[in-house]
């Protein structure tokens, strides 16, 4: 093959960057629109949508929409609820699913393959199909609290956390990652005298950063964006998360500036979390070929 000239190389590079910039803009524009709109009064926001001004912080710019959002709904409480429920769920989910993955990948027990098949098969069952039966179950479960045994879990944090402590996708991600690790490491640790739990905690988990980051981000997004389930199980405002809180802005008259301000505020934790784990997440996607 003839070698490429510097000109064709430059053109190819330019084209590549042009496409990447275009794709980046497609993803960034909605966020810019949201952020810019959150600073504008509703009337201006709607009139700007027909021009490039929709993406520019021009005209009557203020933080009024943010102030109004806080007056309209307990935004801080919703964000706290979401972050609390999501964080606790993600941490416990990672512990439980990684242990399950470890067991499927490294331990020998009867029925392991069948059990893994069943776990993976649950991937095709959407929450919507089991939401009603699940609601009936959690409504009749006991809980030992400060006042002794109580029945029914509705209107609580636990009802938003416990049903999501494990999930097939996270187990599957861990199983796949663990299976690719060299078995010699496990055997070296066994010869060193480590118990299975010590191998899990001291050998395997410390080298599983990429899959932990991937699973954490996927779980965080899924939990943070929950709408149907918390809507069904939290009648009291005290336990409601951000997505259910969005309803508060669509009652009576919808002020789009306030909606955008609220959306901007609830997007911040997601972005912060993603940026914190971005490097490990990309490493994992690149090395395992898992696409989100």
């Amino acid at each position, binding site marked *: 093959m003839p070698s490429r000239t510097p000109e064709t190389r430059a053109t190819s590079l330019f084209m590549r960057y042009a496409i990447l910039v275009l794709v980046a803009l497609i993803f960034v524009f909605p966020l810019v629109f949201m952020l810019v709109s959150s600073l504008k009064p509703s009337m201006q926001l709607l009139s700007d949508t027909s021009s490039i001004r929709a993406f520019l912080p021009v005209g009557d710019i203020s933080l009024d929409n943010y102030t109004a959002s806080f007056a309209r709904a307990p935004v801080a409480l919703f964000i706290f609820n979401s972050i609390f429920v999501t964080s606790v769920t993600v941490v416990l989910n990672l512990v439980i699913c990684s242990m399950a993955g470890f067991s499927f990948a490294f331990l020998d027990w009867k029925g392991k393959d069948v059990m893994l098949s069943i776990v993976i098969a649950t991937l095709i069952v959407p929450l919507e199909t089991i939401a009603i039966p699940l609601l009936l179950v959690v409504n009749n479960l006991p809980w030992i609290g400060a006042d002794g045994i109580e029945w029914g879990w509705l209107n609580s944090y636990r009802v938003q956390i416990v049903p999501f402590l494990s999930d097939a996708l996270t187990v599957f991600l861990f199983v796949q990652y663990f299976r690719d690790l060299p078995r010699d490491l496990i*055997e*070296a640790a*066994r*010869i*060193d005298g480590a118990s299975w739990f*010590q191998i899990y905690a001291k050998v395997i988990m410390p*080298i599983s950063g990429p899959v932990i980051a991937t699973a954490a981000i996927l779980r965080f997004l899924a939990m943070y964006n929950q709408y149907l389930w918390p809507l069904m199980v939290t009648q009291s405002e005290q336990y409601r998360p951000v997505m259910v809180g969005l309803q508060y802005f669509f009652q009576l008259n919808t002020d789009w500036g306030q909606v955008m301000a609220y959306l901007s505020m609830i997007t911040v934790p997601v972005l912060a979390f993603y940026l914190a784990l971005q490097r490990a997440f990309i490493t994992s996607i690149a090395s395992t070929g898992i696409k989100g």
Partner: protein
Amino acid sequence: MASLSMKSVRKSYGAVEVIKGVDLDIADGEFVVVVGPSGCGKSPLLRMVAGLEEITAGTMEIGGRVVNDLEPKDRGIAMVFQSYALYPHKTVYDNMAFGLHIAKAPKAEVDAKVKKAAEILKLEPYLDRLPKQLSGGQRQRVAIGRAIVRNPEVFLFDEPLSNLDAALRVNTRAEIAKLHRDLGATMIYVTHDQVEAMTLADKIVVLEGGYAQQIGTPMELYHTPANLFVAGFIGSPKMNYIEVTVAEVSADGVKVAAPDIGEALLPIDPDKAAVGDRATLGIRPEDMRHGKTDGITVSGRVELVERLGHETLVEITTTNGLDLKGIIDGTTLISLGDTTDLSFAAASCHLFDSAGKALTRREVPEVVRARRGT
């Protein structure tokens, strides 16, 4: 340190039996090399000693204690893996100290043992480094260091040099031999490389088809191979084979006949030979001479000449289609297509019966009784 004994040890994976009954006794402080071609079952055998594989049948004893059902950590062994198997997130120090930490050894003891191992292996400057910051040879030394700090009764090595380049392999081989001398520990070493086997072993176990084909010192295996497989496996280039018929059996030995060599009287014990038996004569290429200098001569056309400097490898094909290799003096003038003679002494010959089993040689060099280092 401890002795090790295997009695009728077998290993099956489902219906497939890979180890079909191995008996082996290893004395305290002995260096035993298990050698064999790929798939012969040498790694499963080592892993059964380590406790990483279950023993399907038979008994395994370490230091007089049956270990069949003991966990790897309770067997008093340490293993060096082919892939090194270093913990990538731990420093050299922590890699070596991991087993002691798990055993909850006092900090001062851990420190002393790790530093002593590092001193033996010249790893002191690298204790704070991660495995990825080390060269292949250094990683191998860390893997050996991790084994040393455990102060095991038996060291197990699973092809530890196969990931190293040729020069480093020679150095590390010498280091392992020195380590064995210094520690005086019992060591079992698995390899497919016969040079490693010959140079390191007090005793070699040649494994093939799930059986120990022969167990003996390197020189016993070389000079008195028990069968055709061992004869062909030990020694490089491989031993030449000539199909012969037993023409006469007498007190002087066994006279054999074949079209390419005529008749030759071999100093072989005649007990198990009978006139008319088919047999295989074995002769090592390094026992061949150029010309008609030794007793038995074979003529043929030169098909291959490989000059190695101090010696030359030649291959000839006789008119009957027999291929023979010989290692001759490096200064000999010889060209492809020439017709030439290779000869060998009757005393250098091996004879195998029709089942491939060796008949006893009467004239065996004194060196057969040599042990490593003598």
